[in-house]
């Protein structure tokens, strides 16, 4: 826990008209940890996520990646720095197979002249996709059927496996289990731990307190556009988190205990 932050945000401000969505928010995540970002509706979680993944620009504040000051003009710029986002609505092409989705926009080309003519190397992509799924413990009944025929949990797994394939530093996940049943949620949480164990920093946005306590290593609480608490999961409890989310004082609530 003494390692320095991999991705760090300081004093991020973002206004929408009269609304201060972020009012000097701080945030940090280390490599190889799952950091849950929680907060009530309107606390600024989504805005912070968008700014950190390059989808929006902050009005003030700085972002540091591995100690270097960075600026992401677009999600593509963030992706080039090894940062990916798993969107709530997945963003997979339903008619394509899992392996095609894994490589969408980053196809492996055939070597030599054929590759320069635009020919894709399907066997190589299939091989790498199978390895990636195996490494992360994702079990699909087939890598070749269309994604639309997979269950919601399997689709989410494909989306996460894709993010983990191309992002080697930070992956943001926005409510990754919101639409899933109990068993599928368990599988996806296992997958998130697998991704962390590859040394990737995972930022998990969730409303589900028990789940956050179950899977996260560390929790940061946002309230009214500011960070009001950051604590390791060992020191967290639902009561403490709710107190921090609603009153902004987790430590006061915990003090008597």
């Amino acid at each position, binding site marked *: 826990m003494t390692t320095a932050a991999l991705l760090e945000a300081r004093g991020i401000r973002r206004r929408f008209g009269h609304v201060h969505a972020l009012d000097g928010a701080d945030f940090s995540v280390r490599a190889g940890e799952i950091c849950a970002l929680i907060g009530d509706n309107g606390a600024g979680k989504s805005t912070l996520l968008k700014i950190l993944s390059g989808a929006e620009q902050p009005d003030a504040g700085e972002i540091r990646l591995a100690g270097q000051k960075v600026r992401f003009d677009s*999600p*593509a710029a963030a*992706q080039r720095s090894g940062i990916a986002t798993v*969107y709530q609505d*997945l*963003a*997979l*092409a*339903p*008619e*394509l197979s899992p392996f*095609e989705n894994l490589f*969408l*926009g*980053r*196809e492996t*080309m055939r070597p030599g002249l054929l590759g320069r*003519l*635009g*020919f*894709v190397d399907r066997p190589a992509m299939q091989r790498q996709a199978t390895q990636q799924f195996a490494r992360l413990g994702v079990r*699909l*009944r*087939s890598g*070749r*059927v*269309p994604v*639309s*025929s997979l269950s919601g949990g399997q689709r989410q797994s494909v989306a996460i496996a894709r993010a983990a394939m191309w992002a080697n530093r930070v992956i943001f996940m926005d409510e990754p289990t919101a639409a899933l049943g109990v068993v599928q949620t368990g599988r996806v949480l296992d997958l998130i731990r697998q991704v962390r164990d590859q040394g990737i920093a995972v930022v998990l946005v969730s409303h589900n307190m028990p789940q956050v306590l179950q899977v996260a290593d560390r929790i940061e609480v946002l309230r009214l556009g500011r960070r009001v608490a950051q604590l390791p999961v060992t020191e967290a409890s639902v009561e403490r988190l709710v107190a921090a989310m609603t009153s902004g004082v987790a430590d006061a609530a915990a003090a008597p205990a």
Partner: protein
Amino acid sequence: MTATAQAADAAEPEAREATERWQRLLGGGWIFLLLLALIAIFAALRPTQFGSPYNLSMLTVNAAILLVLSVGQTFVIIAAGIDLSVGAVLIFASITSALVMLALSGASGSTYGTTAGGWGVVGIGLAVALLSGAFWGAVNGVLVAVARIPALIVTLGTFGMSLGFAQILTNGTDVRAVPETLVDRIGAGTVAGVPVLVLIAAATALLGGIVLHLTRFGVHVFAVGSDQEAARRAGINVRGRLIAIYVLSGTLAGLAAMMATARFATTTIGGHAMDNLSTISAVVLGGTSLFGGIGSIAGTVVGVFIPIVLLNGFVILGIPPFWQTVATGAVLVLAVWIDQLKRRARERA
């Protein structure tokens, strides 16, 4: 989980994959079986007429122009678009190229109604036809991808505009004098007994299939048609791909225009009003989904031949040829219905 359950779980995927492959083969292959059945029935009932080399060559020549248009339409529909302008763009391209060829080859040819234009004139004519087609394709692509107007409306608009311009250029009459070389060597020519028009169509379909199924461009066509937003987030240049797809369809309409001029030795302003619907039904018959993301060139080839074989068989059997439109319409509705059933079954799984 017990050991036996685990073993069953591990064996299951391969078995399921095999059944799925069969289902897909039958699901997409039934229309191919239908075509084979039609050919078998007509060949059995009238073996000498239907199976004659002349009849078979006429069948394939009739299919050639429609197939070239349908290859472009396949790309467009897989990308979840539609191109209603193909027939009108064909007419426009045939008029512009015929006018240019006429201006370049002053003298008359040896046969009545032809000009003495040689390969050079034909080559320039081909370039004009392809460029004319590409131009309308680019107009379609930009309006669909950049202005974000629905493809149905854009291509309905360019259908009217290209047809109108073609009529304005010639005052509504066809250009009847075309180079003799084009008519004799391309339109009526054969290589090793195979009509040149058929060779051109076969090469187009083969190339189209290679591009669609083996290249990155092809993967992106499927991705854009499957979910445009997902494709955009994956870093695909959706606008660029859409424009390229419509340019491809327009350019192939230009190629088809040259083939039509070569075959009929005249432009054919009145002859292509229904080409858009013919190509769309051929593409859909071939198993390509109107919702995008699913389809193949091989299916389109089968889809092009079904109405043509039906018409030919009915004529040979003495059934009034009007029944062909009835039969084709029914098969088309059946094809889309089966596509819907497959889709629903898959989404329930």
